[in-house]
């Protein structure tokens, strides 16, 4: 049953050291504000799940919060590599990072299976792919009707999932639209789901088949305008591409990274996000 609360409280009540956690968003609606709040609260030993662990996971890994990352594409979208993740994988800085790597198809199926309450996802995949040889969680099942061998991987069942969405109504029902990505599945697959939203409205006024997460499927809803920045919220503000470019420089150097995090995350608050998107609003 969703409770409205501050992002600070929602993070501290729902995230713990050692949790398996997903901050999901497929390019669109990335929960930057929630990730920054988690960074400020300084969690450790997290297992981070995400299809596209872009800037926010680069930040969390660089801050030494992650012991493991489960992912399918570790890049800065449109820019290139994730330099903090690379530094952890290649050099163990600031700590060694365990990786469990999948394809997008596998991860999408793993979230879908998690949302469906199943222990595994079954799909046609990984044929000839090198990941099947280096990831012991890629197994197979044999179809009892055709004999076809299909890929099987564990479903994603995070302890907690954080997503960002466009709006909630006053009961805490949440609507997502546009590039809906994997948000619904990631939220439903988790034991606890925390959603930051652009606004709280009286009535969602939604299309009959819109993507809606009912309030009883969520743990907490937090009003954080701009909370996806520098990602975007369809209908609210556009993507801040300059920030993504800038990140490539910041993350290239450990000291520059540390200083930037101090100034822009540790010394900042969730409320700062609203001002960051002011010039980007549509």
């Amino acid at each position, binding site marked *: 049953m969703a409770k409205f609360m501050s992002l600070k409280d929602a993070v501290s009540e729902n995230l713990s050291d050692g949790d398996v956690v997903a901050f999901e968003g*497929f*390019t*669109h609606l990335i929960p930057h504000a929630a990730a920054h709040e988690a960074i400020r609260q300084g969690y450790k030993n997290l297992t981070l799940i995400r*299809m*596209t662990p872009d800037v926010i996971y680069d930040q969390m890994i660089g801050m030494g919060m992650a012991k493991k990352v489960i*992912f*399918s*594409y*570790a*890049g800065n*979208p*449109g*820019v*290139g*590599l*994730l330099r903090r*993740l*690379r530094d952890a*994988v*290649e050099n163990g800085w600031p700590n060694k990072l365990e990786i469990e*790597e999948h*394809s*997008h*198809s596998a991860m*999408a*199926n793993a*979230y*879908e299976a998690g949302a469906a309450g199943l222990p595994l996802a079954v*799909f*046609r*995949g*990984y*044929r*000839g*792919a*090198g*990941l099947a040889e*280096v990831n012991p969680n890629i197994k197979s099942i044999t179809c009892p009707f055709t004999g*076809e*061998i299909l890929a099987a991987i564990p479903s994603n069942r995070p302890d907690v999932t954080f997503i960002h969405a466009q709006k909630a109504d006053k009961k805490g029902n949440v609507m997502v639209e*546009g*590039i*809906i*990505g*994997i948000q*619904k*599945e990631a939220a439903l697959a988790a034991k606890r789901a925390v959603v930051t939203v652009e606004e709280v409205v009286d009535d969602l006024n939604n299309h009959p088949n819109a*993507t809606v997460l009912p309030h009883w499927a969520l743990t907490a809803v937090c009003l954080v305008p701009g909370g996806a920045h520098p990602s*975007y919220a*369809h209908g609210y503000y*556009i*993507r*801040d*591409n*300059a920030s*993504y*470019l800038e990140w490539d420089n910041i993350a290239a150097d450990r000291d520059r990274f540390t200083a930037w995090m101090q100034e822009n995350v540790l010394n900042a608050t969730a409320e700062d996000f609203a001002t960051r998107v002011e*010039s*980007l609003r*549509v």
Partner: protein
Amino acid sequence: MSELGYTSDEMMTIAASRVMRNDDVCFVGIGAPSAACNVARLIHAPDITLIYESGTIGTEPDVLPLSIGDGELCETALTTVSVPEMFRYWLQGGWISVGFLGAAEVDKFGNINTTVIGDYHHPKVRLPGGGGAPEIASSSQEVYITMKQSLRGMVENVQFFTSFGHGEGGDHRQRLGIDTKGPTLLITDLAIWRPDPVTKEFTVVSMHPGVTREQVQETCGWPVKYAKAVETTPAPTENELGILRDLRARTKAAHEGTKKVPQGTLLKQGSE
């Protein structure tokens, strides 16, 4: 730009655009494939269906997207579905006629590596990984690859099979139970390559105007084979160049003239 009046990158993009058919349903990789597909759409394939893995189906962006999740892809799409649906119903369901991929590293059998340089568990360089590529490569009816030639990019053997092309060649795909065609075309800045019908090794079938065999070999990490009759790729027409340059100019102008930076235009085109 060379004395030919166009760049090798323009030649590559235009050559790639020409192979796209009006009735193709194309799973589009970001960067060079995206440019080629959109040029095709603007020139000779107005009804081509472009699909990006973020879930946008039948998108018609006015400027080139930067990432697979740009807002304009959704705004101009026929519909936008969830990512699980994209991979389950549309890719795995067999609807994709062409999966169009870029590559960091490709070998002569069309195997692609975007995962690691060096040992997987102790990598020299950790690359972003495969994203959608492993299943795009196996579930699309055929796969086109486009990339600039270089000794780092075109290697004798990829260091990691991010996505499986023809493996060790021959009937290796069939032996693994993969019933799609795999890579049927490689378009570089210098040439057009197709797999040999038997060995499946990429073979030059057409060279772009002015390109020499030496240039092709110098930028390719394996001994290049040529078809019996190697054609010369027709040079870009004025119309093709005009459309491509307009698209790139629109893409550039879309953000430079405004404080509100439209998505997908500020950054260089790259990976997802």
